[in-house]
């Protein structure tokens, strides 16, 4: 499958109407294609982890895992599995040449200090102004657990979101304002979903820019979302 790289923002919205919405695997490939060569990236636990499968060695992208490593390799298989070497999702991983280990305070200093170029996170909701909710449903019977989500949200130079555009009940996850407890304020710059790619953020004054759509037109999206969509 070839999908046009979406990084050409400002060159107009691309509507992919000859196909359905993206699968999560396809979406991972789109995001991988949009990450510039040679940058430092943190892939959040869950779906964003899949982006690693679509990064090529030529891109020279270095993966950070917040439990204390740069130069993380693919998931470990068989004899490679070492309980002392895991990613932030506690899945056994491998080490690439040029890796470095560091402790938690150093690892989060790296994030908080703005040294990571990109991080990709999942989300419950993203607002047009870039607010992110991805750590707590707000239900009273939920046990709250934040992990590194808030640190990642405010730390990376660019925060990308990878999610389905609609929840299982059909409600949009790209919203005028988050109703779930926030993870970060105005921190998201780009939202990658199965139905389209969007630019959001505090500078956009509620005006979400549509970079690409998949299996749906911009005008059809307008009827399903409560946010103001602008062509890129």
């Amino acid at each position, binding site marked *: 499958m070839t999908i046009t790289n979406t990084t050409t923002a400002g060159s107009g919205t691309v509507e992919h109407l000859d196909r359905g919405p993206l699968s999560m695997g396809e979406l991972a490939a789109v995001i991988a294609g949009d990450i510039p060569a040679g940058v430092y990236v943190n892939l959040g636990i869950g779906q964003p982890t899949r982006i690693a499968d679509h990064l090529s060695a030529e891109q020279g992208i270095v993966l950070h895992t917040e439990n204390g490593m740069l130069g993380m390799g693919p998931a470990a298989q068989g004899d490679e599995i070492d309980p002392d070497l895991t990613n932030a999702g506690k899945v056994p991983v491998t080490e690439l040449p040029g890796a470095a280990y560091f402790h938690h305070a150093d690892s989060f200093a790296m994030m908080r200090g703005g040294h990571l170029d990109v991080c990709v996170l999942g989300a419950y909701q993203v607002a047009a102004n870039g607010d992110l909710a991805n750590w707590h449903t707000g239900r009273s019977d939920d046990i709250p657990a934040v992990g590194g989500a*808030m640190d990642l949200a405010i730390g990376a130079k660019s925060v990308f979101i990878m999610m389905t555009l609609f929840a299982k009940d059909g409600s949009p996850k790209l919203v005028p304002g988050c109703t779930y407890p926030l993870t970060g304020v105005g921190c998201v710059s780009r939202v990658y979903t199965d139905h389209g790619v969007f630019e959001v953020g505090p500078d956009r004054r509620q005006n979400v820019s549509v970079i690409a759509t998949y299996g749906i037109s911009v005008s059809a999206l307008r009827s399903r979302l409560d946010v103001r969509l602008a062509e890129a």
Partner: protein
Amino acid sequence: MSRTELLETADEAVAGIEDGATILVGGFGLAGMPFDLIDALIRQGAKDLMIVANNAGNGEVGLAALLKAGRVRKVLCSFPRQSDSWVFDELYRAGKVELEVVPQGNLAERMRAAGAGIGAFFCPTAVGTPLAEGKETRMIDGREYVLEYPIKGDYALIAAHRADRLGNLVYRMTARNFGPVMATAGTTTIVQVSEVVDTGTLDPEAVVTPSIYVDRVVQVDARHYTVQGAR
């Protein structure tokens, strides 16, 4: 901190821990968790403990076993809820353990501040979220920050890879995680290691935790737990 004690057993290593103590417990999930020290702490019997750790136990081992033994009053951590945190979940829902959730990086930085003599620091993490509610905030250079205070432990219980006889430590891969920071923030730092080597055999350029931070060391047999569905 004066000279490091090398002890024969984990039981000797945890001797004297008082009821009500605040204990920093190393590990990220199972990697770097000081299993032998926690098992010894369960035998030792200290109760009403405040535990500071990243997680709130996995399966039935380590912190989960300590929780199950009913010794923990409160857990301060970043990520209690996991697919295998059933021990904690049950105690929490039954109101038998308190919980304070802190962003992972703040947990690390607040312990670093405790070890580094910093009184408090303005941190951009969690601004505008429920985890900053009630905390002092300030705009600095156009960005909003939350004031965060140090987290100091009466004890730190951590696992490292090797110690020399002086108490210098090296870790192994991502099992390093919270160990070096907790070592600085614990009034008494107790370390289990896989190997004790002669002083002078660790590379001085590669020592991660200098001996000044280490009070007690015990060598334990390698044990690795795997918990299905851990994350």
